[in-house]
C-alpha cells in the first residue's frame, strides 16, 4: 500500500514537472527555437543579459543558452594578436565563426581549435572568402602574446587553408568578455586552480552580427559547412546536435576517497554474494545428503 502510494506520488510529481514547473525548466531554452522563434529568443536574450556573468549565482543553469536570432554587441572592443584594440564591428563584416576558448587550457580547447583547423581544409565553403574565424579568450588574464602563440600554432595546423588575417585570436578585459559571452548565452566558471569549466561550442554569426547557429562538440566539417551556409543566407536556424562537451580540468586525487569507498563497497557486495551462494549450496548439499540418508 505504502509502495503504491509512493509510486503514485512519484508519477504525479513527474506529471507536474512535465506541466512546465520545476526548477530545471526555469531558465530552459524555448522549446520551439529555430528560425520562426528568432524574435522571441532575441527578447529572451535581452532579459538575461544582465544576469549572466562569470560568477553570478543567478546565472542560468544551461552551459549554453542559445540566443539564435539575437545580435552581438558589435561595439565591444578586444585586443588583437599584436595588442591593438579591435572592435567586433571591424571584423564582423562577413559571416564569422565565433569560438570562445582560452589559450592555455588544460582541457579540450586545444583539441577544439585543432579540430576546427583541420576541418577548415575539408569544407565546401572557402575560409577567408565565405567566412572568417574569430577565437576569443574567456580568460581576462591572457595577453596578446598568448593569442599570438596560439595563432602561430593553429594557422600552421590549418596548412594554409585560411589566410592569416582571416583567423583572429582575440583577448579582452573582463567586462568585454562577460558582455560578449552573455550575448551568446555562454556560461563559464573559473576554478580555484585558475582553469575554467566551460562548454565546447562555436557560434556562427551573420555579417550583420546576427546569431545564426550553434555548433557543438568536435566541429565536424559538415556541421561547420551548414552553419556557414546559413550564416551566408542570414537565416537563423535550430542547432541539431546538442550533445554538449564540457571542458574542465578534473583532479583525480580530490575524489580518491570516494573512489576507494566505491571499490570497497563493490568488493563487499561481491563477497556477500559469493558467501550467500556458497552457503546456499552447502545447505542444499546437506539437505540432499540427509534425504539420501532417509532413503537408504
Amino acid at each position, binding site marked *: 500500500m505504502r509502495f503504491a502510494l509512493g509510486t503514485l506520488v512519484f508519477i504525479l*510529481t*513527474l*506529471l507536474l*514537472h*512535465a*506541466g*512546465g514547473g*520545476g*526548477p*530545471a*525548466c526555469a*531558465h*530552459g*531554452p*524555448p*522549446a*520551439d*527555437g*529555430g*528560425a*520562426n522563434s528568432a524574435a522571441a529568443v532575441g527578447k529572451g536574450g535581452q532579459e538575461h543579459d544582465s544576469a549572466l556573468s562569470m560568477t553570478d549565482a543567478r546565472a542560468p*543553469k*544551461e*552551459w549554453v543558452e542559445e540566443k539564435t536570432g539575437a545580435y552581438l554587441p558589435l561595439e565591444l572592443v578586444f585586443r588583437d594578436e599584436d595588442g591593438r584594440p579591435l572592435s567586433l564591428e571591424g571584423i564582423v563584416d562577413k559571416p564569422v565563426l565565433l569560438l570562445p576558448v582560452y589559450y592555455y587550457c588544460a*582541457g*579540450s580547447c586545444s583539441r577544439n581549435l585543432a579540430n576546427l583547423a*583541420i576541418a577548415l581544409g*575539408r569544407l*565546401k565553403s572557402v575560409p577567408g572568402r565565405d567566412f572568417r574565424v574569430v577565437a576569443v579568450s574567456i580568460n581576462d588574464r591572457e595577453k596578446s602574446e598568448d593569442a599570438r602563440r596560439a595563432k602561430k600554432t593553429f594557422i600552421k595546423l590549418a596548412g594554409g587553408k585560411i589566410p592569416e588575417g582571416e583567423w583572429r585570436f582575440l583577448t579582452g578585459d573582463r567586462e568585454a568578455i562577460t558582455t560578449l559571452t552573455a550575448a551568446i548565452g555562454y556560461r563559464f*566558471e573559473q576554478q580555484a586552480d585558475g582553469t575554467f*569549466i566551460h562548454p565546447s561550442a562555436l557560434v556562427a554569426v551573420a555579417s550583420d552580427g546576427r546569431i545564426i547557429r550553434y555548433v557543438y562538440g*568536435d566541429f*565536424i*566539417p*559538415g*556541421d561547420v*559547412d*551548414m552553419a556557414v*551556409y546559413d550564416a551566408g543566407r542570414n537565416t537563423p*536556424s*535550430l542547432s*541539431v*546536435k*546538442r*550533445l*554538449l*562537451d*564540457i571542458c*574542465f580540468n*578534473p583532479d583525480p586525487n*580530490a*575524489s580518491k576517497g570516494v573512489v576507494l569507498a566505491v571499490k570497497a563497497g563493490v568488493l563487499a557486495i561481491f563477497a556477500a554474494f559469493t558467501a550467500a551462494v556458497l552457503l546456499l549450496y552447502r545447505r542444499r548439499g546437506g539437505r540432499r545428503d540427509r534425504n539420501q540418508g532417509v532413503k537408504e
Partner: protein
Amino acid sequence: MTAAQSYLEQSSPPGRTGWKAWLLTHDHKRLGLMYLWAILFWFVLAVILGLLMRTELMGMGRTIMGPEAYNSMFTLHGVIMIFLFGIPAIPSIFGNFFLPIQLGADDVFFPRLNLLSWYLFMFGGGFAVFSLFSGDGFPDTGWTFYVPFSISSAGNVSLTVTAAFILGMSSMLTGLNFVTTFHRMRDKAMGPMQIPLFTWSLYATAWVQILATPVIAITFVLVVLERFLSIGLFEPDKGGDPLLYQHLFWMYSHPAVYIIILPAMGVISEIIPAFSRKSIFGYKAIVYSSLAIAIAGSLVWAHHMYSSGMSDVSVFVFSLLTFLVAVPSAVKVFSWVSTMYKGSIAMSPPFFLSLCFIYLFTVGGLTGLVLGAAGTDIHVHDTHFVVAHFHFVMLGGTGFAFFAALHYWWPKMFGVMYRNRPAYVGAVAAAVGFVFHFVPMLILGMQGMPRRYYDYLPQYETGNFLAGFGAYLLVFGLLLMLLNLVFSLRNPRTAPANPWGGTTLEWSIPSPPPVENFTDSPNIKDFPYDFSEIVSNSNK
C-alpha cells in the same frame, strides 16, 4: 490433435473467455502474439516517421516539415525503433513463443511475471508517447540523454527516461524468465549441446538483459534526481563528472546492440540449416560465439567515448576488445555460409530473407570497420555514412531477420500458410529498396553530408532525391510482406505440423500448438539439427 485444442481456442488458465482470455493469460504463446501486435504497431508507426523524414529530405529547404518537427521525428523514430521494436521484437515475440517449446517445456518458469512484462511494455510505450504530447514536448536530447543538456533541457526528459526505465524493467523480467526457463524447465533428456541455437542465442541475450539493464535504470533515476534535486553527480561545477554519465549510459546501450542482434543471429541459425537440409556447420562454435559476443560485447562500451577525453590506456584496451567482438560474429557468418555449401537448398521466403540478412549484415559489418578505425572515422564521423551503417546492421540485420522469423514461424504460430508470391515480391522490393536507399546515404556521408539536419547543401540534392525513391520501395516491400501475412489469416490455408522440414521440437507438434505444447513427452534428439530422417523421408 484437433484445432479446438490449440492455444488459440483454449485459454490458459482454463475457463477464461473473450478479452480476459487474452489480457489475463499466462500462456507464453498468447503473450508472444500480444507482443507481436503491439510491436508491429510501433514498427509501422516508426517506419511512417522515417518515410516522412526521407520525403522532407528529397528536396532542399523546407518541404513538408521544419527543423523542430524533423528533430522530434528523428528522436521519436530512434526511440521507437530501439526501445519498442529492436530490443523486444525477436526475444519478446518469438522468444516467448518458441523458447519453452524448443526446450520441451509447457511454459516459461514465471508465467505471471511474463504477463507483467507485457503490461510494463505497453505502459512504458504509452508513457513514451505521452511524453511527446504533454508538457514541454518530446526531449530534444536525442536518444542518449547526454548530460549536462538532459539535466537542463526544458523538454520532457524526466517523463521519457521514466518510460525507458519501465521498458527496461519489462526487458529485464523477460530475460529473467528466459534464464530460469532455460535452466529449470528444460526437458531432462536435453543436454546443453542438444539445445537449438535460437534458444542459445536468447539465453546469451537474456544474461545481457539481466546484467546491463539495471545500470541504465539506475542512471536514468540519477538523471531524474539531478533534474529535481541538483545533486551534482554529473555537473563539473559541483564536483561531478559528465563522463561518468557517458560510461553508465554506454555500459547498457552498447550491449543493447547485442540484445538486438544476437537473437537475430539465432533466427538465421535456425533457418539456414532447415532450408539447406543439412546439419548446421559448427554448432558448438556458434553456441560459444553467442556467449562470447554477450561477454565481450559487455566490455566494449567505452569505444563510444574515444573523443570524450579518456586516457590512452583506456582507449587502447577498449579498442582491442572491440576488435575482438568481430571474431565471434565472423564465426557465425562463416558457419552459415558453410552450412549452405553442398546443401540441398530449398528456396522459400524465410530463406530468401535470411540470405538478405547475411548480405546486408556483412555490408553493415564492413562499414563498421571504417568507423571503428580512428583514421577513417574522422572523415565520416557524424555524417550520413554512420546512419547508413547503423541501418545496414539494424534494419538490414535485425529487421530482415525479424521478417525471416515471421515467415518461418507464421505457419506454426497461426496454423496457416501464406501466399509465397507476394512474400517474394515484398522481400525483393524491400531488399532492392534498402540498397537503393542506404547506398546513396553511404556516398553522401563520404561526401561530407552531416546527419540530423532537415536541410543540406545544394551538392547533396541529387543523392537525397534518389535515396527517397529507395525508401518508398523499401516501405512498399515491408508493408506488402506484412499485409500478405495478415491476409493469410482471413482466407486460411491450413498449415501442416512441419511445412519446412525443420528438426527442432516446435516442428514435432501440431500447428498451431496445443496449450500445453506437448501432449506426449517430447522426443529429444541427440543432435537438434539431424536431418537424416527428413532427407530419407523426402527421398521416398
